[in-house]
């Protein structure tokens, strides 16, 4: 017995959203990268034009808020090299902290 799946806009929208969610979860749990590659391939077929209208409307609102909030730290700073330096130092400290945490949870594996 065979089943035929028609990849219309609705199906592709679902694939796009589900693969997105699986990708995020996958990265969190550090499963083998082959899974990530497979999910990326699936996601590649489901383009942004397949996103449902309701998700686009919510995306417009939250996209604006997320992009705005990302600017809170550097808003009105006109010296781009200064911003880069600040974030490099911030990221460095953040990663150091993350490494310490990894060391703790992995019980001396690191």
């Amino acid at each position: 017995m065979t089943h035929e799946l028609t990849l219309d806009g609705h199906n592709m929208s679902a694939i796009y959203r589900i693969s997105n969610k699986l990708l995020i979860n996958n990265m969190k749990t550090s499963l083998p990268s082959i899974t990530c590659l497979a999910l990326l391939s699936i996601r590649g077929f489901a383009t942004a034009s397949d996103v449902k209208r309701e998700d686009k409307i919510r995306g417009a609102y939250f996209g604006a808020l997320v992009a705005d909030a990302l600017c809170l730290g550097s808003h009105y700073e006109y010296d781009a090299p200064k911003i880069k330096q600040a974030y490099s130092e911030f990221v460095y400290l953040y990663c150091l902290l993350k490494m310490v945490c990894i060391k703790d949870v992995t019980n001396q594996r690191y």
Partner: protein
Amino acid sequence: MLIYFTSLSLSNTILDGIIDEYMAPGEAMGGQTHGVGWGARNYHPGTKKGDQTDYGEYNVLVLEHLAQSVDNPHSFDVSEFIPLWQKRLTNGWKQWVCTQTKQTYQQIQQGVSVNSLGGNSNAMALRYSSVFAYYSSEEEVVDAARKTMFTHKERTAILGNQFFAKVVYRIIHNNIPPTKAIKEVAEESGEWIQNKVQQAFDKVHEAIDPNNELSKQEFVDDLALTSMARLWDVGKSEPIKVGKASPTEGTLPGAIYFIVKYERSLIEAAKANAMVGGDNASRAVAIGMVLGAYHGVGDIPEKFRIGLNQWEHSEALLKTFPLLRDSAGNDEL
């Protein structure tokens, strides 16, 4: 294996030096940023990591206003909006209060009629990201967009405001990509918009062409933006690079530059824009609306949802809006 991946991740992140977290105002820069012409200060003194700038906060305010009338949807009425606006400005507004907001507040106190409100700043202030969930026609969306910017009445600021309203509407309802929507709306617009749009597309080509010197620069986006508008000699000691500042002649092509160059990813565009600085929050609303509409809410990574302090409050209101309430609860990620 664990050591290898962790070390690789660390070194790459440091080399990139790209923002990947929400940050408090001036965080890692001494708590201040240097707004040219205004000096160094904390421009959003009551905010913390994950909060909005004044541009984003205005969008939340318009959302809250429209949420009061979801059972009786009607055209945006500035006189209905003003009481909530005044209340918020005088009770716990944590962000910068722009000159046009101050001026309009004074005009209302002096009895100026609603139709005559606003100042002549040429800065674009997009506050209407929620209206796409409330109104179903392009005419209603454009009308609401204009009225939410009632604090401004300068020609180019209004043109930029209406331009992005049409672009976002067509991405949502006509299901076309940003580049096509931008070109389509530009073709229907006047010469000023057409020239600015062309300028942005030309600059993207210049910035990604490996044979062009600009593409090889470390601060390519910064240079691209500053080169798209003239210098202003203000304050005699600090010429403003208008391309990065608030005037629409810089923010409009600047926003389009990031949208077109980083069309594949909302977050990549948002991060690159944040790294350039200047009035990046003004550009951010345009970039976020356009690419958010294109990729959908599902394209926003979980950490940026969780970290956004307005997410839950906004989500609760937004799902009651006319164009979303029938599908509310069906598509939670």
